[in-house]
């Protein structure tokens, strides 16, 4: 069969079964939003902390997806061909998350110690004023969201323009733009992680923090795309173009990001452990005492060691049933890691483990809306960029039994 015949034969729409999932996720999103509103009325302070955990968790999937699209374009990776539209639909959710950032911006004075009224009495906060002040913080947030929205929409839009009329001329443009976008992600996310997470304790600083958060985002992105790809693999057209070798490759990259994340986390810990300075080490004391110890141990064992040894196995990475479970597990542990990073920053939770119900409610709420918007995005365009020149390499590789 000739290549063009194979391209024409398949349908490119989202399977109808997924329409039910769309309604369910919208219901979950609305229910979560109502719970969030109740939580915000009962205790705005506690709600905002939980909301921030949920927000950073879903932001990680979105920006992780954006970074993976850039990676695919820069390296012209074959494994990325069949999943690119999935990633584009996820990355465009950055527009939803731009809106969902409003509660954090509005609640800034309740969430961040440097934004509290009278925070200037603290000398260090006073010195940090040129950077950590509400106006600059908002301005920077606007710049981050502008960068991410432009990146996600530009890469998506050119991807659609490839479809009709068929145009092969986008490869160079994709490659150049993606190279710039991945660097911009590094810049903006480094500052964003300082602004939104690290400044929750503005007496503590870590230069590796941004990279640590970004390694986690890459991990979330790969875990997400593996789940979505395996679920869509039962249907055309993904089943036509996605091969087990592609999934194996994505499993390897998830493994790589898991190791990268652990490397950052450990490097940061080692430096503060070795220096053992009172100002710096308190951050770890807050997270390793009063019940948080067990969360930390759980992260070391269940976020790193268990998945690490499982992912060493080639058989596991080529077994879609097992790989999808492990990817889902990684997303759960990403949430736990963000919870451990964010929640023990506050006076009543430092060194005192607490369950934040609003974090769970907000995770369901944002998650429901996120999945709903993802499915709406996914439906709007063909599932595979069928006129991308990469299709010939993918088909050729299949014919040779890859």
């Amino acid at each position: 069969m000739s290549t063009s015949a194979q391209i024409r034969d398949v349908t490119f729409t989202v399977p109808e079964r997924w329409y039910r999932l769309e309604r369910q996720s919208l219901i979950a999103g609305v229910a979560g939003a109502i719970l969030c509103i109740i939580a915000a009325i009962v205790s705005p302070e506690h709600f905002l902390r939980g909301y921030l955990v949920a927000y950073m968790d879903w932001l990680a999937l979105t920006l992780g997806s954006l970074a993976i699209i850039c990676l695919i374009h820069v390296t012209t990776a074959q494994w990325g061909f069949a999943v690119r539209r999935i990633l584009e639909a996820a990355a465009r959710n950055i527009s939803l998350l731009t809106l969902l950032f409003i509660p954090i911006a509005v609640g800034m004075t309740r969430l961040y110690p440097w934004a509290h009224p009278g925070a200037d009495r603290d000398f260090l906060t006073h010195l940090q004023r040129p950077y950590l002040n509400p106006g600059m913080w908002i301005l920077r947030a606007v710049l981050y969201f502008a960068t991410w929205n432009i990146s996600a929409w530009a890469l998506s839009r050119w991807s659609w323009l490839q479809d009709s009329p068929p145009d092969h001329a986008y490869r160079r443009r994709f490659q150049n733009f993606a190279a710039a976008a991945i660097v911009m992600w590094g810049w903006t996310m480094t500052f964003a992680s300082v602004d939104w997470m690290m400044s929750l304790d503005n007496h503590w600083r870590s230069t590796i923090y941004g990279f640590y958060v970004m390694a986690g985002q890459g991990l979330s992105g790969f875990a997400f795309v593996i789940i979505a790809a395996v679920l869509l693999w039962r249907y055309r057209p993904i089943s036509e173009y996605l091969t087990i070798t592609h999934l194996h490759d994505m499993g390897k990259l998830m493994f790589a990001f898991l190791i990268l994340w652990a490397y950052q986390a450990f490097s940061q810990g080692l430096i503060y452990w070795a220096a053992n300075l009172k100002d710096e080490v308190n951050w770890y004391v807050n997270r390793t005492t009063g019940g948080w110890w067990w969360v930390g141990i759980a992260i070391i064992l269940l976020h790193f060691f268990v998945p690490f040894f499982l992912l060493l196995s080639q058989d596991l990475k080529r077994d879609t049933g097992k790989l999808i479970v492990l990817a889902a597990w990684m997303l759960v542990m990403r949430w736990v890691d963000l919870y451990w990073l964010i929640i023990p920053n506050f006076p009543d939770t430092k060194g005192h483990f607490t369950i934040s119900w609003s974090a769970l409610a907000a995770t369901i709420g944002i998650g429901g809306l996120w999945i709903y918007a993802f499915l709406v995005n996914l439906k709007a365009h063909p599932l595979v960029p069928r006129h991308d020149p990469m299709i010939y390499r993918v088909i050729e590789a299949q014919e040779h039994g890859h």
Partner: protein
Amino acid sequence: MRELPIWGLMAEFTSAADLAIATRRAREAGYRRMDAYSPFGIEAVTEELGFHRTKVPLVCLIGGIFGGLAGFFLQYWIHVLNYPQNIGGRPLNSWVAFIVVTFECTILGASVSALLGMLALNGLPQPYHPVFNVPRFAFASKDRFFLAIQAEDPKFDIHDTFRFLEGLGARDVQEIPN
């Protein structure tokens, strides 16, 4: 073992797809003692040739674990047993600080054992191999694809195998002198 007059027969193909098809046909025809040569790896061909899992990953894993343990206990032995010193009031068994060297030794152990394990299991270095007696074999590292069937193969018959290889669409079939 009796000395065979030739080592085998070598068929030359112009494309990877032809080589993959030829390898499958040869396998279906019952040939087992054969090998394929190409400028790059072709997964379909490796599968047809029946390349099974190698033991290199296992050797590598064991080497890595051994390297890690050795790295850790080297430091433990120095800092706790052999020459204990109080450094800034930290515990003698400062395992956090030991991790860096442990990690590096894990990689050293894994990579050295992977290299040596690979050489031990695939029989390299091998200074002489009969396939190089065919002058055109030099193209195997450029743009040609070769399938060699050894004379040792029970199904091998110089005339039948020659015709069989020719029938696969080979550009050329040559004898491989011993």
